[in-house]
């Protein structure tokens, strides 16, 4: 009997060994991050980079990924597709996984290279419309546009029963016109009529003509679908023309970045903005992140996209550990696929701010929030699911 138990125990132990982590070959996990560290959005690129580096420090402090340290390799694409494509071509040679690129023109130029090489590159700050063109070799951190935005904007509209007519300022860049269509759906769904949109030229310097055009229609509410700096200037112009109901102005999520606050200052007080990240929640990881960010950025609070590449690196960590990736160059193709497959359908991923699932590369249960701006800070108005 004792011998039988001993044999059984031995068999069980041997079986367990077979399911354990195969020996990791890599001495260091090098994760390139194609980012825009110079040029017009360098400041935002730096915040994203900071998030990724901070995650790497945390991960290494707690033992690394499968016991091996991780290093984020910053790769500056300078918003130049010519540079982005060559850098991605270098990375796919023996890279296991990458992060970025940022922003859309570089994604267009560089992601086809990653797709062809069968390597995942996490575009964690672009819309689903861009990301899904490159599935399954990236995932989207942003949920589907139309249904999500319709719900959010409807929630905003319901806050103000006096709001009957809304006008949108739309800049023709990337997915923004599509997002504006999502807003229309939401507003019309609750019986608010949508006035003809005001198109914002990409190189507009003053906004008086556009604001007058909008106000001529006597709207009750305004949605801004343009870049952050322009959004802030339009708000200032609206204020100067007597617009009083600041909370009847809604800024879309892509304009919720440091440029909005740097340009708008206290003129933004009362304006509402929607986003899917609530920076005011409290959890130990996020509190530590905020404190460290403030320390390195002269007291500034993180902006809404700051956690994205932090989460992206943690998702990569989870993928490597849960799928038994070893970093063995001879298994590169196979391990790249493992990471991509895992991330595309990760369940209950513990993000910095909330947990979420991915289904075929699309996040399924991310919350959305509406905030009101006061003195450069956002106060939660409501969570929209």
């Amino acid at each position: 009997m004792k011998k039988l138990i001993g044999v059984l125990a031995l068999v069980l132990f041997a079986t367990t060994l077979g399911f354990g982590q195969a020996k990791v070959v890599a001495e260091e996990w090098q994760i390139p991050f194609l980012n825009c560290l110079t040029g017009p959005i360098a400041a935002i690129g730096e915040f994203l980079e900071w998030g990724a580096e901070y995650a790497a420090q945390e991960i290494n402090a707690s033992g690394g990924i499968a016991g091996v340290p991780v290093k984020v390799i910053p790769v500056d694409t300078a918003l130049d597709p010519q540079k982005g494509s060559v850098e991605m071509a270098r990375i796919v040679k023996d890279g296991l996984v990458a992060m970025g690129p940022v922003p859309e023109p570089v994604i267009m130029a560089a992601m086809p290279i990653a797709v062809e090489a069968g390597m995942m590159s996490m575009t964690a700050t672009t819309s689903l419309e861009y990301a899904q063109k490159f599935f399954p070799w990236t995932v989207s951190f942003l949920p589907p546009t139309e249904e999500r935005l319709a719900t959010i904007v409807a929630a905003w509209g319901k806050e103000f029963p006096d709001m009957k007519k809304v006008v949108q300022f739309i800049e023709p860049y990337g997915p923004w016109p599509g997002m504006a269509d999502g807003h229309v759906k939401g507003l019309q769904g609750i019986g608010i009529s949508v006035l003809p949109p005001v198109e914002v030229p990409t190189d507009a310097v003053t906004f008086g003509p556009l604001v007058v055009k909008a106000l001529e229609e006597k709207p009750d509410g305004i949605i801004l679908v343009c870049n952050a700096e322009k959004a802030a200037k339009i708000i200032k112009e609206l204020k100067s023309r007597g617009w009083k109901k600041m909370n009847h102005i809604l800024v879309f999520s892509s304009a919720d970045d440091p440029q909005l606050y740097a340009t708008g200052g206290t003129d933004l007080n009362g304006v509402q903005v929607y986003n899917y990240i609530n920076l005011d929640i409290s959890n130990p990881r996020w509190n530590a992140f905020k404190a460290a960010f403030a320390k390195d950025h002269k007291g500034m609070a993180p902006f809404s996209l700051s956690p994205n590449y932090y989460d992206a690196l943690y998702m990569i960590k989870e993928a490597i550990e849960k799928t038994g990736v070893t970093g063995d160059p001879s298994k590169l193709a196979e391990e790249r696929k493992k990471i991509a497959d895992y991330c595309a359908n990760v369940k209950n991923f513990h993000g910095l701010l909330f947990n979420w699932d991915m289904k075929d590369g699309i996040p399924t249960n991310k919350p959305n929030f509406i905030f009101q701006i006061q003195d450069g800070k956002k106060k939660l108005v409501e969570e929209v699911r």
Partner: protein
Amino acid sequence: MQVFVAQLINGLSLGSIYVLLVTGFNLLLLVAMIIHFSYPQVVVFSMYIIWVVLQLTGNNLFLGIAAGVVSSICLNLLSAPLFQKVMRKRGEVDINSTMVLSLGIGMIITDVLSHTFNKGLPVAFPDQLASVTPLLRVGLISVQVGQVWSLGVGFVAVSAIFLILYRTRPGRAFRAIAEDPNGARLVGIPILRTGLASYALSGVLGGVTAVLLAMVLGSASPGLGEQVAHKVLAVSIIAGLGNLAGGLVVGLALGVLEAIVQGYISGTWSNAIAFVILLIVILARPRGLFGSKL
């Protein structure tokens, strides 16, 4: 009618920005024979200097404005020898060399601004300089302090520069050394001193323009100069190179045209429509609507 008047005022406000920039641009043409394509970037740089000094001095307007003017003068004086060196023939506008040189200067300024000031984020000017409270508001019609100043100073600047250049001895000396340095030397005009003075005058105008832009726009970003540079060049060419009065008229007209197109037709087509009209004008009158003064 109210809407039309409001758009007209918007157009004049936008046009006044072009007038200020084109006047400085034309001044450099007249006194130095250079096409400073990146003159708007120099002005934006001065705007940033104003912002820095305001931040450091607790919004001391006098010091901020002085710093803007001084920085513009310094930049102009620093770039003067470079322009003088690249010009193939003195006495003639060498568009190719000077425009390309100014392109290089503009690239450096824009990139330095996006690297070093406020982490590349836009900078907003304080209410003391750029208040959103209008001077006058009637319905949709709104007139801001900055708009009045920029339009007024635009007119004054054009008149003053015209008077200086065409009615005063120093002004005639500026033009003389630009058009014929050897001849100017022969008649006893001190070339170096006069040349430096001409660049300094242009720097003063650049600094004043920076202050007025800060008042009108309320903020500045590294790419602001590039956004307007093409239009400034276009206005100058359409009006007639070096034609100060023409620059005033065409600058205001372009501003009004853009405002009307944005207000009544479409925002995204405003640039295209404006440039098509400019194109038709330049093809019909290659020396500009009002004739070149060079």
